[in-house]
C-alpha cells in the first residue's frame, strides 16, 4: 500500500479527522444564486431561482457535508463547484472561486482541465455514470491521459495502483471488464478510483452511497475516511442521509429550498441544531434504538424554484411569527456557526429533544397468512430440459416458513438480492411459488393473480415504492380511487365519489384533491393517495414494498404514522419491506432476516434488534449508520456481492465472520428456537449470545 500512497501527490496535513483544518479556503462560494429563465405562455419571461444567496467557504483538508431533502439545491450547489450548470441553468448572481479563479468566468477549455484534475466528482449512480461501452481500463486511462503527466506506457500500472487503492480485488482483470460486470459497490469504487486519477485537491461526492446496501455503504464510507486520512483530500459530501453525513463530515451545511439555512460543526449540528428545520429533520429520522415512531414535520417541502416571501421555511415552522412571512432572514453567526433564522439567539440555543410518537396500540388477532416451505424461482425449466432430466436450477428463494396474524406487521429485511421482493411477488400472485404452500386463512394463495377471484384479489393489496410510477398520470385522483371501488363494490357516480372523499379523509387529504392529477401533488401526497387506493378494497393483508424510500425524511415520518394509525383502525396485517432498518424498527412487530433467499433469523423486532444473534443479522445491524456523531458502525465481513445462493450448506457461508468450517459449506443448519426467536446457524445459540457480549 505504501507505494500507492507515495504516488498520490498530497500528503496528509496531520489532522485527526475532526476539524483540525488548514485555514486557507480552497473553494469559496460567494452569495451564489443560480436559476433558470421561465418562459410564460404570454411570452413574458421571469427568472426562477434554484439556489439563493449561498455563501460557503471550504477549507483545505476538511470534509463538509451538504444535507437537505430532494429539491433543496444541494446537488446543484455541488455541481456549481465544478463550474457546471445543468441544462438551461444560469448564474443569477455571485461567484464560485477556486483559489483566485472564478469558475463561471473561465473559458470552457480551462474549465475542462480543472474538472477531474483539480476538482473531481464522484457521482451518485456509478452504474449509470460509467460509460457502458468502454472497458474500465480504457476509462481510467482516459482520465490519466487528461489529468496526469504520466507517459502513456505507465497508464496501466497506475490504473492498477488506483484500483488497489480503493481495495478492489484482482485489479488486472478488472481493467478488461465492462461496468455492468461489476456489483454496485465495485462500480462505486471504480468511480472513486477514477476521481483520484487526477490527484484532485477537492473531491465532490454526490450521494456516493445512496442506492447501495447498508453493508456496502458502510464499507465505501470506511474507504473514503481512510483515503481522506491518507491523502488529506478536501471533500464536499452531498447526501440526504444524516447518518452518512455524521460518519464522515467535519462540518455540516443544511440546505432548504435553495438556501443554506445552517452551517456548523458536525457534532454541534447533530447534538444541538439551531434552525427549526434542522431540529425537525433530526426528529423525523427514525432511530434504531428508539422504539417509537419518529415525529413528523408538518407540510411538504416547496417545489424546486417556488417563489416565497420571507423565510422559506415559514409555512412549516412551529415557531413562525408574522415577521417570518415578511422578512427574509440573513445568514447570521451564532457562536461558531451560521444560521438563517429570525428567531432570537437564546431560542436557537435550546437543546434538541427527540420526542418520538408512541406507536398506536394494535390488537393482534387470528393467524391470517402462512407460508410453508415456499420456494420461488424466476427460471422455469423448459420442456426440453425436463425431458433430458436436467436438475432444476437452485431456486431464488427457498424454504420460506412465515406466518402473519391480523393486525400484525412483519418486516422482511436483507440486502438487495435477498429475495424480499420475490416473496412479495409470489404472495400477490405475480410469480407463484415453485414449491410449498401460501395460505390466506384457509384459502390457498398459490394461484397466479389471473386465476384468483375478485374476493381474494380484494383481500390482498399492495402499496408500491414509487407513487410516480404506480399512479396513472392521466387519471384524476377521483378516477384512481374509483377503480377499486367500482371493481370490488360496484360503486358508481355520487356514491363512489363520496366514498373516495372518505378514503382521502382517512389519509388526511381534503376533498379538493379529488379533481387533481398526480403531477399536481407532492411525493408525500401521492403516496397518501396510493395508500388510500389500497385501503379502498378493505383488504386483510397489505404488501408494502419500500413504501417510504422514495420520500423525504420529513414526509416519511408522517406516512409511517399514517400506516400505523390505519392499521390500528382497520386491523389489517402488513408485510413490510424496507432497506432502512430504522424504519423497520419503527413500524414492524416482527422481523424476518433473509440472505440470498433463505431465512436466517426471525423474531420480535425489539428482541432481534437489541440482540442480533445470527452472524448475518449482526453484520447487517452493525453496519447501520446513525445521525449521531458518536456512533461507529462495525464491519464484520467484506461486501463481496454474491450473484447466486450456494447450492448447498448455509447460504451465508461465503461471507460469515464466524464460519466454522466444512460443516457450514455442506449442511444447511437446522432451526434453533430460543427466547421467542428462531435462527438458522450451526453455532449453538447460547454460544452466539456469548460471542455477542464480547
Amino acid at each position, binding site marked *: 500500500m505504501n507505494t500507492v500512497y507515495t504516488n498520490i501527490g498530497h500528503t496528509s496535513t496531520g489532522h485527526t479527522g475532526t476539524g483540525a483544518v488548514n485555514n486557507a479556503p480552497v473553494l469559496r462560494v460567494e452569495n451564489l444564486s443560480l436559476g433558470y429563465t421561465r418562459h410564460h405562455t404570454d411570452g413574458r419571461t421571469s427568472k426562477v431561482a434554484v439556489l439563493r444567496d449561498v455563501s460557503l467557504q471550504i477549507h483545505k483538508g476538511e470534509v463538509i457535508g451538504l444535507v437537505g431533502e430532494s429539491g433543496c439545491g444541494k446537488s446543484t450547489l455541488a455541481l456549481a463547484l465544478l463550474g457546471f450548470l445543468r441544462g438551461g441553468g444560469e448564474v443569477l448572481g455571485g461567484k464560485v472561486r477556486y483559489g483566485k479563479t472564478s469558475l463561471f468566468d473561465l473559458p470552457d477549455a480551462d474549465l475542462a482541465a480543472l474538472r477531474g484534475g483539480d476538482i473531481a466528482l464522484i457521482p451518485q449512480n456509478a452504474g449509470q*455514470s460509467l460509460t457502458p461501452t*468502454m472497458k474500465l481500463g480504457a476509462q481510467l486511462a482516459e482520465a490519466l491521459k487528461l489529468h496526469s503527466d504520466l507517459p502513456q506506457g505507465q497508464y496501466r500500472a497506475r490504473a492498477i495502483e488506483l484500483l488497489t487503492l480503493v481495495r478492489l480485488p484482482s485489479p488486472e482483470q478488472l481493467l478488461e471488464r465492462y461496468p455492468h460486470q461489476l456489483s454496485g459497490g465495485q462500480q462505486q469504487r471504480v468511480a472513486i478510483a477514477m476521481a483520484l486519477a487526477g490527484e484532485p485537491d477537492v473531491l465532490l461526492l454526490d450521494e456516493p452511497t445512496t442506492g447501495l446496501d447498508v453493508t456496502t455503504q458502510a464499507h465505501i464510507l470506511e474507504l473514503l475516511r481512510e483515503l481522506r486520512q491518507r491523502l488529506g483530500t478536501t471533500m464536499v459530501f452531498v447526501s440526504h442521509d444524516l447518518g452518512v453525513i455524521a460518519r464522515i463530515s467535519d462540518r455540516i451545511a443544511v440546505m432548504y429550498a435553495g438556501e443554506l439555512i445552517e452551517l456548523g460543526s458536525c457534532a454541534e449540528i447533530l447534538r444541538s441544531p439551531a434552525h427549526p428545520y434542522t431540529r425537525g429533520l433530526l426528529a423525523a429520522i427514525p432511530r434504531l434504538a428508539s422504539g417509537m415512531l419518529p415525529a413528523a414535520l408538518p407540510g411538504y417541502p416547496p417545489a424546486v424554484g417556488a417563489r416565497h416571501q420571507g423565510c422559506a421555511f415559514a409555512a412549516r415552522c412551529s415557531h413562525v411569527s408574522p415577521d417570518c412571512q415578511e422578512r427574509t432572514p440573513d445568514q447570521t453567526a451564532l457562536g461558531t456557526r451560521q444560521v438563517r433564522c429570525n428567531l432570537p439567539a437564546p431560542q436557537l440555543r435550546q437543546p434538541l429533544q427527540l420526542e418520538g410518537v408512541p406507536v398506536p396500540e394494535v390488537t393482534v388477532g387470528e393467524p391470517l397468512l402462512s407460508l410453508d416451505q415456499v420456494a420461488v424461482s424466476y427460471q422455469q425449466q423448459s420442456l426440453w430440459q425436463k425431458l433430458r432430466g436436467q436438475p432444476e436450477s437452485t431456486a431464488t428463494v427457498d424454504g420460506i416458513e412465515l406466518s402473519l396474524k391480523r393486525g400484525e406487521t412483519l418486516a422482511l429485511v436483507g440486502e438487495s438480492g435477498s429475495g424480499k421482493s420475490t416473496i412479495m411477488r409470489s404472495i400477490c400472485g405475480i410469480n407463484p411459488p415453485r414449491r410449498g404452500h401460501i395460505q390466506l386463512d384457509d384459502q390457498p394463495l398459490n394461484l397466479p393473480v389471473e386465476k384468483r377471484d375478485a374476493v381474494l384479489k380484494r383481500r390482498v393489496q399492495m402499496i408500491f415504492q414509487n407513487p410516480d410510477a404506480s399512479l396513472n398520470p392521466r387519471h384524476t385522483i377521483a378516477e384512481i380511487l374509483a377503480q377499486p371501488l367500482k371493481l370490488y363494490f360496484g360503486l358508481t357516480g355520487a356514491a363512489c365519489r363520496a366514498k373516495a372523499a372518505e378514503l382521502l379523509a382517512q389519509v388526511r387529504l381534503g376533498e379538493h384533491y379529488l379533481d387533481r392529477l398526480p403531477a399536481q401533488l407532492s411525493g408525500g401526497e401521492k403516496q397518501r393517495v396510493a395508500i388510500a387506493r389500497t385501503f379502498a378494497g378493505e383488504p386483510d393483508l397489505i404488501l408494502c414494498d419500500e413504501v417510504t424510500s422514495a420520500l423525504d425524511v420529513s414526509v416519511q415520518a408522517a406516512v409511517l404514522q399514517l400506516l400505523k394509525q390505519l392499521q390500528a383502525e382497520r386491523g389489517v396485517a402488513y408485510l413490510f419491506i424496507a432497506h432502512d432498518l430504522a424504519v423497520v424498527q419503527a413500524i414492524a412487530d416482527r422481523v424476518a432476516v433473509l440472505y440470498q433467499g433463505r431465512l436466517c433469523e426471525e423474531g420480535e423486532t425489539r428482541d432481534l434488534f437489541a440482540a442480533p444473534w445470527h452472524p448475518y443479522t449482526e453484520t447487517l445491524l452493525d453496519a447501520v449508520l446513525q445521525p449521531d456523531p458518536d456512533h461507529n458502525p462495525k464491519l464484520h465481513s467484506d461486501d463481496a456481492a454474491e450473484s447466486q445462493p450456494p447450492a448447498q450448506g448455509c447460504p451465508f457461508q461465503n461471507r460469515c465472520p464466524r464460519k466454522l468450517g466444512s460443516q457450514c459449506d455442506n449442511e444447511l443448519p437446522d432451526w434453533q428456537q430460543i427466547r421467542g426467536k428462531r435462527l438458522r446457524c450451526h453455532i449453538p445459540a447460547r454460544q452466539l449470545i456469548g460471542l455477542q457480549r464480547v
Partner: protein
Amino acid sequence: MLKLILNRLVLAVLTLVAVCTLVFSVTEALPGDVCTAFLGRNAQGVRLENCRADRELHKPAIERFADWGYGVVSQGDLGRSLKRNKSINKLVGNRMRNTLVLATTAALIGIPLAIFLGVLAALRRDKATDVGISTGSIFAMTLPEFVSATLLIYIFAIQLKWFPAVTTVRHNAPLEDLLPNIVLPVAVLALVMTAHILRMVRSSMIDVMASDFVQMARLKGVPYWQIVFRHALPSAMLPAVNIIALTIAWLLGGVVIIEQVFNYPGIGTLMISAIYDRDLPLVQAIALVLAAIYVGVNLLADLTSLALNPRLRTARG
C-alpha cells in the same frame, strides 16, 4: 457467442426453405403457367401440350419443387428459365452484380451520411441545422421514390443533361460502362435511406447525450468531441443498427422499382419480367437470392449489436 451464431444460421436456412416453399405454392396456385403466358392467344391444343411437355410441366408440382430444391442444394444450380430456356445462374449472375453495385453504393453513401447528419442534428438540437436536417428528412421520407426519381431525371438528365435518364447498356456490360448510369438511381435510394436512418440516429443520440455517463464524462473534463465519439456514439448506434438492417431490407424492395424507372439491367427488372412471364423457377431463384441477402444483413446487424453492446457479449461478473 458461437452458439448464438450457429443458432441464427440454422434459423436462416429454415427461413429460406420456408420462403421458397411459399413462393412456389403461391405461384403454382395461380391460374395459368409459363406456356399460357408465352403462347398468349395460341395457348390451346397441341401447341400448349407440346410446350408443357418440353418444360416437363406435366410432372406433379411436388416433384418439380423437389427437383429444383435438389439442384440448388447439391450443385448450387438455380435451375433453368422456362421462358428463356437458359441457365438461371447465368441469367442472374451479371444482373445480380449490377444490382449489388447499385445497392452497395447507395448503402455506403447513405449509412455514413445518415450517421453524420443524425449526430449533427442531435448535437445542434432545435437550432437551424437541426430544423433543416429534420425537415429535409421528413420530405425525403414522404416522397415516393418513383416521384423523386422522376424529379431527378427531369433536373439532371433532361434539363442539365449531366447523367443519362435511362440505362441503355446491356446487363453484361463492363463495370465502367455502367458507372454513369448508376448516379441517379443511387441518389434516389441513398436519399430515402439516409432520411430513415438519420431520424433514428438523431433521437437515440439525443437520449444518450442526456444520460448520466455523458454528464459524468463532461465533469471529468473529457473534450467535447471525444465525449461524442468515444462515450456517446457507440451507445447511440445500438438502436440505429436495427433500423439500418430494416432499411437495407427495404433497399432490396426499393431497388426493384428504381431499376424499373431507370430501366437498369439489374435483378429487379429481371424479376418483374419473370413474374410477367410466369417463369416459375426464375421467380423462385430471385426470391431465394433476395431472401438470402435479407437474412444475411439481419445476421450482420445482430453481430454488430453484439460488438457494440458489451452487455450482450459478456456475462455479468
